[in-house]
């Protein structure tokens, strides 16, 4: 019994070590990944992350440099070096040293290419880090798009690749195309994500809905109102069907997501009455789950107010804008950026009812909030 327990513990230790030292092996490939043998790197890398988390960036940099030096002795074939450069990129990013961060992320890609080849599935990890840097830090979507294209192509080349991963990557690439206004390129990718999900033996409803809503959002931006409505309505129908089985808060929130999408589509397509109905329904659910003062109400109240404004129901519209503003000011603060879209919409109403002075005051407040938050 004792011997069996020892073997079991040893097995657990081996499995744990393997999983810790692996480089994101959620995708398998025919080419074996080099074995990682040098002890101590894990500890240095983890200490570096922890130091960064504890606010000690210099210490984090030192741990990371030590980890790099340690690996320098084993040569650049070691995949841990890839991770170390990625980590250094993160540290530089936190320190606002963007040039150094970019160099580190790029270096991790180059080392990985040399080590395992350009099309190896594990290439995705450093490419993704570089893309993430361009996405959130430099906000350069063109560069993100080309890196996401590369990731999508790598996954597409893997024989018998995971459809779920392919769908996720297709959607992510489509999202960036959509941000760049390249709608015609985004559409087939969203459709592909949807088709891949539908193809599954038991399609994941949550995935179906998210891809349908992404497609709906694209069509709305593209001005294809009917297609947008069709996609969002299909998503809502899936959620409503599911709600018959479970009516907990999560399934109600799932419905809210679809109603909000429909409300937005109708608002953008000059179908204000339908928008009003969608937002009213969504509002009631949120009030029930989160209460009548939740900041979560604000976007729905603003949408509803705009739908009413477009129907010339100005008094009702104004009341909703004021409530939305009040909730946000109390819940998130007077200078919260969430207030800006409410003020802008409210200002539109003021212009419509010939109160240019009030509109100007509202818009000047948006300027001061922007200035405050961008400083």
């Amino acid at each position, binding site marked *: 019994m004792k011997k069996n327990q020892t073997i079991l513990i040893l097995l657990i230790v081996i499995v744990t070590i393997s999983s810790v030292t692996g480089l994101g092996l959620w995708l398998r490939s025919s080419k074996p990944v080099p074995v990682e043998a040098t002890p101590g790197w894990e500890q240095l*890398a*983890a200490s570096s992350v922890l130091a960064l988390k504890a606010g000690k960036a210099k210490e984090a940099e030192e741990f990371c440099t030590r980890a790099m030096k340690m690996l320098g002795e084993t040569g650049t074939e070691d995949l841990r070096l890839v991770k*170390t450069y990625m980590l250094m990129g993160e540290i530089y990013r936190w320190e606002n040293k963007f040039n150094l961060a970019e160099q580190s992320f790029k270096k991790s890609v180059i080392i990985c290419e040399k080590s395992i080849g350009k099309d190896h599935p594990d290439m995705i*990890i450093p490419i*993704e880090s570089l893309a*993430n840097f361009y996405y959130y830090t430099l906000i350069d979507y063109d560069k993100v798009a080309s890196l996401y294209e590369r990731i999508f192509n790598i996954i597409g080349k893997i024989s018998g690749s995971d459809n779920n991963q392919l769908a996720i990557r297709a959607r992510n690439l489509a999202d960036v195309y959509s941000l760049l206004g390249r709608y015609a390129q985004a559409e087939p990718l969203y459709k592909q994500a949807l088709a891949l999900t539908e193809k599954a033996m038991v399609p994941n409803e949550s995935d179906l809905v998210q891809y349908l809503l992404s497609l709906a959002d694209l069509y709305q931006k593209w001005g294809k109102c009917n297609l947008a409505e069709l996609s969002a309505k299909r998503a809502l129908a899936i959620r409503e069907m599911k709600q018959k089985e479970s009516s907990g808060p999560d399934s109600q929130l*799932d419905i809210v997501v679809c109603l909000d999408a429909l409300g937005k589509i109708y608002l953008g397509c000059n179908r204000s009455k339908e928008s009003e109905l969608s937002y009213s329904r969504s509002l009631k659910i949120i009030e029930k789950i989160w209460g009548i003062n939740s900041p979560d109400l604000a976007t729905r109240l603003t949408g509803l107010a705009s739908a009413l404004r477009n129907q010339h129901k100005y008094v009702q519209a104004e009341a909703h804008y004021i409530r939305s503003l009040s909730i946000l000011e109390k819940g998130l*603060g007077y200078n*919260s*950026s969430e207030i800006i879209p409410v003020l802008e919409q409210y200002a539109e109403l003021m212009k419509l009812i010939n109160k240019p002075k009030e509109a100007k005051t509202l818009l000047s407040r948006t300027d001061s909030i922007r200035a405050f938050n961008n400083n």
Partner: protein
Amino acid sequence: MKKLLVITLSCIIFSACQKEEVTPKEVKAAWSSSDKFAKWSNGGYTIYNNVWGSGAGWQTIWANNGTNWGVTCQHSGGGIKSYPNNEKWLNKTTNNTPWCGTWFDVTPGSGAFSSTFDVWGNGQQYEIMMWMNKQGAIGPIGSLQASNQSIGGHTWNVYKGPNGSITVFSFVRTSNINSANVDHKAIWNYIQGKGWWNNPTINNIQFGFEITNTNNTTQNFTCNGRSDWNG
């Protein structure tokens, strides 16, 4: 007369020096400190000031107890300056924790910041970040795995990616909030359901403010209360 002149000159020099110096605000509380890495334990929680980053201004942390705490600070420019937080240890596997949640209520100041949970699993193997209120351009690590996922009463966009040897799961709430119940167990079940981990030990749950800037004005970030429960 000469003595008076010396005193007057000393006062002028002293006040000129004072103008250039950034002075932390005095805070009346059970504990307070302006030390960059000050920490204080009370009632099963540890509170950290955690100030870093080039160009960080001043920051004073205070606490009445382990769950009612805050910082008064002044920061400017880009880049995260600090992550003042309070931490609760759990050290239980997810399977042996049938329920686990946190209620929090905060009043953040103005500026660029996020109110964030940081949950650590299997030592430093896994990290779950839950972004409850995000102001500014900083984003999660990794790639978007799923959008608009309703989990534990909140709707999130879910990201996953590596940071060094750590796998980071980021749950970014689709809208901002300052007071809520958070169902950690529901989040852990979601991660387990995706096959991203297998019954890890959850070590500690941190909650605090990641502050980038306060527009160079003095701001208060307050955690009015926090309570944790698990089974």
